């Protein structure tokens, strides 16, 4: 049983092969890391999986169903959620409202009841607020419960995106460089959050440059280089793979 199956996936941007002929599977309940040098196609791969980009070739199966032609919001309905390398925070809202937007799919969002603010809407909003506060505490944002998003530091915004993604209760959570720009202590805290998320049964796919984090928490690692699969396996296997060492050290002297 696989949660995500990528088959022969390619994406071209005007002759540049950002991702080419890539195949791999992701099993449920694991932490799966995707690593590779800058420009290896990691973020492009995330955008393909989540429906932000359309593949040039190949197929992506989520829960054994094709994702072809599906918009990101439709894939979100099927249980996919993500964060972004370049923050996509709603800076015009408060921190907790950002997380509440993550609850969107689980709330009564019919037009007329919202317009008239029927008792059900007020009640479910109060619950969503509680649940969102809980998630903010879970990712270590208890200090920002009353903050506006535009008044928060970078590290806190990274966590806010994770809380928002978790609020959607995804089966598959894709994290694009959650530790980028964080100091060592903050990185370790994010580590813990990711491990806790995985333990709660969510499958995590991680793009990350922090090798200490990747090697420490991943069950499985996929190494990309120039859009192609360079290696795949457990952290120990990948660490000892000559091709990986060569790509990272920039030579064939491994």
């Amino acid at each position: 049983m696989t949660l995500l199956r990528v088959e022969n996936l390619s994406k071209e941007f005007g002759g540049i092969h950002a991702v080419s002929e890539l195949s791999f599977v992701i099993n449920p309940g694991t932490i799966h890391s995707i690593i590779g040098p800058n420009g290896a196609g990691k973020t492009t791969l995330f955008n393909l999986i989540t429906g932000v980009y359309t593949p040039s070739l190949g197929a992506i199966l989520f829960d054994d169903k094709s994702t072809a032609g599906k918009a990101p919001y439709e894939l979100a309905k099927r249980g996919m959620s993500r964060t972004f390398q370049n923050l996509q925070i709603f800076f015009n809202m408060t921190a907790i409202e950002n997380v509440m937007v993550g609850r969107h799919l689980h709330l009564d969002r019919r037009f007329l009841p919202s317009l008239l603010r029927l008792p059900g809407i007020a009640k479910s909003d109060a619950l969503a607020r509680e649940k969102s506060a809980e998630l903010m505490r879970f990712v270590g944002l208890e200090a920002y419960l009353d903050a506006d998003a535009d008044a928060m530091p970078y590290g806190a915004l990274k966590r806010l995106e994770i809380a928002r993604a978790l609020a959607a209760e995804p089966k598959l959570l894709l994290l694009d460089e959650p530790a980028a720009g964080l100091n060592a202590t903050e990185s370790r805290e994010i580590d813990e959050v990711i491990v806790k998320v995985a333990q709660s049964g969510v499958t995590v796919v991680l793009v990350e440059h922090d090798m200490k984090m990747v090697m420490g928490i991943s069950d499985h690692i996929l190494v990309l280089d120039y859009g192609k699969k360079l290696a795949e396996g457990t952290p120990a296997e990948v660490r000892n793979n000559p091709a990986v060492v060569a790509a990272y050290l920039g030579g064939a002297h491994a």
Partner: protein
Amino acid sequence: MKGVSRWAGLGALAVFLAVLPQALPNNYYVDIAVLAGFNAIICVGLNLLIGYAGQISLGHAGFFGLGAYCSAVLVTHHGWPPVLALLAGAILVGLIAFAIARPILKLKGHYLAMATLGIGIIISIVINTEAGITGGPDGIAAGPFTLGGFTLQGERDWYWVVAGLLLLTIWLATNLVDSPVGRALRALHGSEVGAEVVGVDTTRYKVMVFVVSAVIASVAGSLFAHYVPQLTPTKADFFKSIELVTMVVFGGMASTFGALVGAAFLTTLPQFLTVFEDYEPIILGGIMMGTMIFMPRGLVPTIAAFIQRRRS
């Protein structure tokens, strides 16, 4: 807590609207208040689109005019009861807005501004040239608004109707903003892709808010047609659209009460500057520029932030 402040704002406004007529010395001032009320209703709706969802429209006077002319034509030429004509206008405008929203809202920024501008101008041209139906530049008289043997007469009657409708519109708008629907609208303003990946169908919400704001403008237009003795095409033209956007921007984007204040202020101001009548567009442009440069968030949010800073 938020619920309390919402009712407090609405309550304060209700009290203000209730005592305002006593403070107005004669019907000339009541007339200004009614006109400000009409503008405020449109602006509260337009603010949902511009301020909350972050989409621009430079053609909303077109929807206002369409509603107004629909009422005027159906009532005078076809003898419809005003209420039915108003509903027909709202449905027609809703359908037109829905039909054009999908292609038009794929555009962003300047392109969206240009497209909505085009829609507004087309509506304005049709109203001007279809003289056989609309009366052309001379306009058309829709006659008084009647409902079941009851006729609205004089500025003071109208004042209460418009005040009531304004309160209702503000209540509905604040409800919507503070609901999952409203959060989705604000979220797609903040980051479209960020909203999409947590399940917000951004296209659908953009279409929805466009239609809602157009229908509100149409309803205001239908009533307006009966309020004025003669409905003329200038009420549906490009300049009126710009005036509406200026009211929203000046009062404060993403602030329902800001839209109200912006509409009230910019409706009232020209009445006291009648000596400068020829310069009205210049003054309006100056206010728009001054707002963008010195308080880009608009009057009400800027003052609110100032008070909050003073308190803490």
